[in-house]
């Protein structure tokens, strides 16, 4: 991956006006337009039922779009059966063939392509080396741990050099530590092999860790497609702000709008200045989004004026090892989180009155929830 490429890579996959319904009444995917670039690691992120898996299945060829067309390398593939799409796929439960050994599993895509015995053997052993499992080549999938099965599934999906690799919540069945390790391994494979990966997950931290770009799905619509940091820093609506990372919501009404900023009267009392991202104008109701780490707690009675200074009452504090959280009652939000330095939670007593302050650029005025 070269840093700072100017020319965008050509789109490897293009979804054009895709709609999908199963029952003829509800659209599971509503008007999807999405470009996936060559060599990119793109994650389809969203809650269950948001249409992300359906999108992946349409790309793999297991579901047919009700409307629209999908292009792979500029070629429409709506009527191409899955086995001719040249797309590798890693499934949620690995789907390793239980009656074949590890080596036979990995050799399967090569043998159905009738590659020569020598070449098959060479590529299978290279794949086994890649996942560091040469010694387990003759075991059956049932004799492996979940993490090992996952590696085999990965090797099997990569061994035939597909144009594209799809992964459907591949780490969902693993425990947390193993999941984090596999995230790094998959990311490393992606970078060293330069493959294009479309990854589906509902775990936002997984998406943030691995992806070049993330498409946030909700209700059959892509809410936002962007780099992980951009999604976190510049969410375009309340759903994205809430789904990615921790987020505090304050309801209010827009009083005035001035260029990029607006003044918002909070429903629970007080006014604050915020960046106007997704508000229609003065008089509209809005949801303010403030990240817990962008808020400071000011002891009661201390001097110093901030632009956004609100009274708050400490509910309690939560100790989390590397940091601590204070749960405050601010305006109408009784679960307003503020991230504290470790140790700072000792100075806060439940019931204590304090002030919080945050910069207007860290407070986003978004659509009301």
């Amino acid at each position, binding site marked *: 991956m070269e840093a700072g490429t100017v020319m965008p890579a050509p789109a490897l996959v293009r979804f054009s006006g895709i709609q999908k319904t199963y029952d003829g009444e509800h659209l599971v995917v509503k008007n999807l337009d999405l470009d996936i670039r060559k060599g990119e690691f793109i994650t389809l992120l969203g809650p269950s039922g948001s249409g992300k898996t359906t999108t992946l299945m349409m790309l793999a060829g297991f579901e047919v779009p009700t409307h629209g067309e999908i292009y792979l390398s500029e070629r429409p593939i709506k009527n191409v059966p899955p*086995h001719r799409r040249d797309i*590798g796929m890693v499934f949620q*439960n690995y789907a390793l063939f239980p009656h074949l050994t590890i080596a036979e599993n990995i050799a399967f895509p090569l043998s159905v392509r009738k590659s020569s015995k020598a070449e098959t053997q060479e590529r299978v052993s290279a794949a086994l080396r890649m996942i560091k499992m040469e010694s387990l080549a003759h075991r059956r*999938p049932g004799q492996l741990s979940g993490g090992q099965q996952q590696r085999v599934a990965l090797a099997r*999906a990569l061994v*035939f050099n597909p144009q594209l690799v799809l992964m459907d919540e591949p780490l969902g069945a693993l425990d947390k530590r193993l999941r984090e390790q596999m995230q790094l391994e998959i990311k490393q494979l992606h970078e060293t092999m330069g493959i294009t990966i479309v990854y589906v997950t509902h775990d936002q931290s997984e998406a943030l860790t691995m992806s070049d770009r993330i498409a946030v799905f909700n209700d059959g619509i892509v809410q936002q497609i962007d780099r992980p940091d951009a999604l976190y820093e510049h969410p375009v609506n309340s759903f994205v702000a809430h789904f990615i990372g921790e987020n505090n919501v304050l309801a209010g009404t827009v009083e005035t709008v001035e260029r990029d900023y607006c003044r918002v009267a909070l429903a629970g009392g007080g006014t604050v200045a915020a960046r106007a991202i997704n508000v229609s104008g003065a008089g509209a109701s809005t949801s303010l989004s403030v990240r817990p780490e962008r808020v400071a707690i000011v002891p009661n009675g201390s001097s110093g004026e901030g632009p956004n200074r609100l009274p708050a009452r400490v509910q309690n504090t939560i100790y989390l090892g590397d940091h601590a959280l204070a749960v405050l009652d601010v305006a109408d939000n009784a679960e307003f989180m503020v991230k504290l330095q470790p140790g700072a939670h000792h100075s806060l007593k439940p019931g204590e009155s304090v002030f919080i302050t945050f910069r207007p650029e860290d407070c986003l005025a978004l659509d009301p929830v």
Partner: protein
Amino acid sequence: MTNALLTGANASTEVPLKRRLRRAERTRQAKALALVLPLLLFLLFTFAGPIAGMLWRSVEDWEVRQVLPQTVAALASWDGKDLPDEKAYAALASDILAARAAGTIAIAAKRLNYALNGFRTILTSTARNLKAVPEPGTAKETLGKINPAWRERATWTTIKDAGGPITGFYLLAALDLTRNADGAIVAAPPDQAIYRDIFLRTFLISLGVTVLCLILGFPVAYLLATLPPGKSNLLMIFVLLPFWTSLLVRTCAWIVLLQSKGVVNDSLLWLGFIDAPLRLIYNRFGVCVAMTHVLLPFMILPLYSSMKAISPAYMRAAASLGAPPLTAFLRIYLPQTLPGIGAGSLLVFILALGYYITPALVGGAADQMISYFIALYTTETANWGLASALGAVLLLATVLLALVYGKLVQGQQVTGGMKN
């Protein structure tokens, strides 16, 4: 926890730990045993007992021993090379007189007639014509005069062979073998050599029915395993329907359907496909059709359960890896249904081996299977020895098949374990 680990690790205290485990398990095991005891006893009396009895009867030989005890004793030392000595003739004469008085001649005559055709006449004519115990030293001459057969060596070897207490006669007969006058095992005379053909016929019909069941049952089981629950439940009811109908009723229904003025022939005639009624019943075709119908659920159910366990993700994975549908089916789906195919085929095959009513009702004379002959010997001719021997051979073949299957399935389980 730590304590237990330490005790377990210490080799010198390992035995007490094992003993404690046994003691702890003992009450539980006793309870479990008490629960299965009624069934165990039931099986012992209705299943294991009769089978043991059958096996014993296939080798038991008591008739001659009981009716002609002195003769059997006298022949014990006979080398069989020449005619026996005067002592044996005298013993036979006295045995025959005693048996005539007791009215048991027919028992021995029947048994000896199995081994040597015409022995019944020899024995009964001798019994009729022997007035009194011959003078000492004249028994040989007297008996020889009454029936010249007593001057033949084969007559005496037959008595010696049938002297018991155990015999291979019935088992050999069940395999179309017999002993000649010298005691060597030779092929039975052609007019008696029918059982190999019948066994072969039984196996061929069973095999044909098994193959038909597999061909017809596989797609149905696949449908059952892949249809949405509502539809598959309905289909399952249709599959199970035959289970709730009497075997006799189902077989008779086939007679109604297949006879020369039956539904099938009438329909074909009416449609003009044929000019004269086809012969669909009282032949091999009718037997195979009716048996396949009756046994189909036994194939479908094991197939269904093995297919139900195959996640649809496997076929998707195979397709995503580039396998066309047929390749994916042959290389991924089919191998995973092998345990089900094996279980279903074995079940159908073994059940078919023992079929009696269906072939008897819808088959011709040349389609009767081995159980028909077993029934014939037990109920009609009361030849328990041969009936038991035929049963024993059938049992042996079935057990061998089951063992082979067990080996195959075990191999599958060791290699085919999966997590999902």
